[in-house]
Structures are given as C-alpha cells and as structure tokens.
C-alpha cells in the first residue's frame, strides 16, 4: 500500500507477540480429522450413487438390448411368458397396500401416541408400554410376516389376500408412526397447551384444536416415511403369500403380488429378460420411494417455520 508501513515497529524483524506459539500441528490434526469425518459422511452418498448407477444401467440395458417397452411394462400384469410380463398388477397392489396400511396404522398409531404423550400417567404401566414399543420397532420384518401368516392367513382363514399383507405391514410400521407422532406432540410447546386451557378449553378440545394441528406436519412426515419403508418391504409379504400372480388385484380380499415381491420373483428367474424386468421394476419402486420422501421433506419444510 503506502511506504508508511516500512515504519511499522515489527515490519523488519520476525518477532511478533505470537512467535512462541506453534499451532501448526494442532491445525493439521484439525484438517486430518475433518477429512476423516467428511469421508465417513460421503460414504452413504457414494454408495447410493453407485446403487442408482447400477439400477439406471440395468434399466437402460433392459430398454435397449432386451426391448422392454415401458408402455407394455405399465399396462400388462405378471406373466410366465417374458414378452407378456408387466408391472401393472404389482403397482396397483402396492398402492392399495399403502392405502390400507395407512388406514390401519395411522389411526391406531396416532391414537396410542396421543394417549401415551397427553394422557398416560407417568407410571410403570406407561413405561412398560413405551419399552415394548421401542422393542417392537426393532423386530425383524419377517416376524411380522410370520405373525400375519399364523394369525390372519391361516388362523382366521383370510388366505393370502391383500388385506393380510396390509395388516402385516401396518403392524410393522405402527411403532415407527407412534414414536414419530410422540416426538411431534412433544415438540408442541406447553405454553400453547396452557394458552388453550386458560381460555377455558377442555383437555380434548386442547388436543383437537391446538396440539394436533400444531403437530400434524410432523405426524404426516413420520407417517409418510413409515409408509415409504413399508412399500419396499418384501419379507412379510412373501410370508403372507404374495406370490407371482398373473392378474391384477381388484380389492383387499384379492390375491396379489406387490412391487417388491414381483421384483423378487423376476430376479429369481434364470432368463436375463426377467432380470432386466426386475431392474425396470426397481427403477419404478425407487421412483415411488423418492416421491414419498420428497412429499415428506416438502411437508416438513413448509410447516417447520410455524413452530
């Protein structure tokens, strides 16, 4: 800048008040550790990218080398003949499964979360229920399939119908819905509850009019994420008997094969054409998953500022 700086007292000597402090190694440790934890956090991203790449490649090869027409894929049902096989029945069955799973799991799940969070006294019974729920959330999904098989498919003789699959999936995701609903209810500040009580509202009016509306975005987000988990579940549906079927499921009492079980069946076939049908199915299933997660993220962002 200007020549004035030449007159600065420390300009010529190397001495500054800080020369005796050597932080070089400390800063290097900082950077090394940052590198390690950044690599760790990128691991998941890289794996997801590789997975997507694999799916997209198989999807592309299915389109080009095996001549899988997307129109046929979306308008035909399962078939033993590879050139006639499509995904429509599986998509319809999966959508119906989600609807019935949501109905079954949502009301019971949200109801029990409201009880546990708003009404239940803090005693041994409540703690037992909550410990039980935490354990249920960790039970392997195939166990729910076994339960549904024993109790509903064979026990009361429903047979391998869509409703039995929905029950299995509802049982599977219910603990997730309960826990996420509890968290959403807990995030509603007590000052709002007090504001409602002080206005002369009863407990139920307070829950109905203030707490639930305030918690609803969180509840919806948790429910959609739980359903996104359910839509990809294969094991419980296999246990229930969601086998390769050649026709569309028309209702909850029809036999069915959902998207993941259809993919599972195709992937087990020896012909490469079926393998690539499976890859196309995986692409469709992933699209469903991303759409559901996208809705959940949208809901969370839209309402998060309100609390």
């Amino acid at each position: 800048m200007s020549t004035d700086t030449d007159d600065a007292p420390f300009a010529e000597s190397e001495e500054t008040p800080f020369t005796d402090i050597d932080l070089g190694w400390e800063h290097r440790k900082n950077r090394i550790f940052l590198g390690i934890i950044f690599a760790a956090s990128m691991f998941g991203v890289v794996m997801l990218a590789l997975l997507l790449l694999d799916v997209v490649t198989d999807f592309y090869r299915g389109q080009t080398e095996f001549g899988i027409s997307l129109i046929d894929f979306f308008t035909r049902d399962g078939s033993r003949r590879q050139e006639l096989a499509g995904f429509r029945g599986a998509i319809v069955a999966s959508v119906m499964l989600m609807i019935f799973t949501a109905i079954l799991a949502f009301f019971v799940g949200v109801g029990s979360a409201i009880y546990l969070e708003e009404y239940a006294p803090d005693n041994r019974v409540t703690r037992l229920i909550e410990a039980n729920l935490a354990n249920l959330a960790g039970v392997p999904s195939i166990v729910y399939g076994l339960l549904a098989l024993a109790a509903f498919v064979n026990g009361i003789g429903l047979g391998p119908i869509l409703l039995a699959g929905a029950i299995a999936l509802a049982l599977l995701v219910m603990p997730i819905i309960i826990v996420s609903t509890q968290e959403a209810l807990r995030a509603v500040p007590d000052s709002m509850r007090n504001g409602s009580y002080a206005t002369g509202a009863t407990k139920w009016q307070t829950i109905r009019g203030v707490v639930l509306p305030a918690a609803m975005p969180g509840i919806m987000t948790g429910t959609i994420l739980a359903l996104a988990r359910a839509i990809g579940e294969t094991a419980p549906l296999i246990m229930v008997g969601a086998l390769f079927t050649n026709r569309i499921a028309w209702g909850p009492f029809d036999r069915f094969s959902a998207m993941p079980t259809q993919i599972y069946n195709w992937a087990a076939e020896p012909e490469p054409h079926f393998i690539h049908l499976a890859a196309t199915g995986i692409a469709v299933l992933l699209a469903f998953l991303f759409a559901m997660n996208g809705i959940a993220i949208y809901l969370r962002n839209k309402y998060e500022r309100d609390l």
Partner: protein
Amino acid sequence: MSTEQNNEPIIKTGVQNVAIGARDRPDETVLEATNLDVYYGDERAIDDVSIEIPETKVTAMIGPSGCGKSTFLRSINRMNDQIDAARIDGDLYFQGKNVYDEDVDPVALRRKIGMVFQKPNPFPKSIHDNVAYGLRVQGKDDDVNLDEAVERALRAAALWDEVKDKLDSSGLDLSGGQQQRLCIARAIAPDPEVLLMDEPASALDPIATSKIEDLIADLAEEYTVVIVTHNMQQAARISDKTAVFLTGGELVEFDDTTTIFENPDDNRVEDYITGKFG
C-alpha cells in the same frame, strides 16, 4: 433519621394523572383468598396469603423472583392443577364461591377468568381463529356474530388497525408485541370477568410495553385485572392496588398503589421498592 422521610414519595405513581371511571366506584371484592398456602412437593411457594381483590380495578402483584406471585396468580384460575406436584391449602373465593370446592370444574372457572402469559403464546392458526378460539371452545360461536366478536376483541386489544387486512395470516407471523396483544384479544374475546396477566410485558421492548400498559388501563374499565410484574415503575403507573410479596411466598403488604409506593407501612416493602432488597 428525619421524621419527614415518609412525606417524599419514593416512586411517583401515575395514578393521580390517569382519569379512569372505575376509580370512582366503590370497591367490590371479586376475588378473595383466605389463608392460602400453595406447595410444590414439600416446598411452600405461597405462605398463608389473605387478600381481597376489588372488581374492575387493576391489582398489581410485585416482589422479587421466586416470591410466589406467579404461583398465586396461577392458583386463581387453577392453572396449578396442571402441575402434578402442586397442592393447595386454604380457600380462594371467586364471587363468593370457593373455587377449590369439589363441585367446581376448573374448565368452567377458566371461562370466567381469562389469562395472559409472560411469553406470547399464540396458536399456529390465523389471527381470526386465534381470537375466535375461546368463543369456539366455549360454544359461544353460535350465539354471537363471530366476525364482530373478533373485531371487538381486537379493537379492545388495540390491535385491530394493525391486523384488519390480514386476519387470515398466521398469528405467529406477528411481532412479539403484536402477538402479546393478540393473546390479550384471545383472552378477552369470550368476555371473562377477570383477566390475569403474568408479567405480560416482560418479554417486550419499551414501545410494545407502553402499548400494553395503555391497554391495561383501558381494560380495567370493564374487567378486573390482576397483573404480576417485575417492574415496579410499571406497577406504579398502571395499578390501583398493589400487593407486595417477598421471598417465601409471604404477602407483606397490600394497599392502594399510592400508599405502597409513597408511604408503605412495612420497612421491608420500603427497602424493596427503594432497591435495598430484592
């Protein structure tokens, strides 16, 4: 020590300058506590408080932190019922009825006694629905024109002009001072008889505070206002009666605000309001 000491006002009160019709009326007791104790677990938060709170006046409760003034306020509309550990001894009468009698439903009590909290706590609803909330839960929304009732409450809370064009936007989008006035509008919309205010201006800036203070003076024409405040100047400015609580939940002195601030009986009160204690 001069004997003239007490002739000098310690803190000037604004009461003399404010013309409020209510001040001319004779005192009629609306709330009365006799030998009231409140315990949180084993700890005594209110110690043997007896007080008669007059109708359509502003009664201020002042005292240091933890002296039990907020606890006393919350025991009036039984908000302490929400706390499991809270326990009450003694009697508290609202218009001659002991509110702790078996046959008193706290929900019904709170429909007669509104409350405004320290921190503004609007609901995540529109401004209109926030104000209409009390009328709706109390089943009064069929009897009155809801829009008119909302407008009346917002006008009474001196908020109408600021929000009349955006009644459908969220109450949470308002500033802190506006939110607090929204909460006041919410509390007075169902037309309670008593309005409890728990340090309603302590989270607000000076301009918002002065708006709330003006508002309280207006509200006292229609409602009995019981206000807890940390701010002695505020109590001096806005209240007709002042109760001084000291540590341990003891009500040390209760009298006209002018007397408390200019010529208190109790030395501890004098020490507290001159800043020697507390």
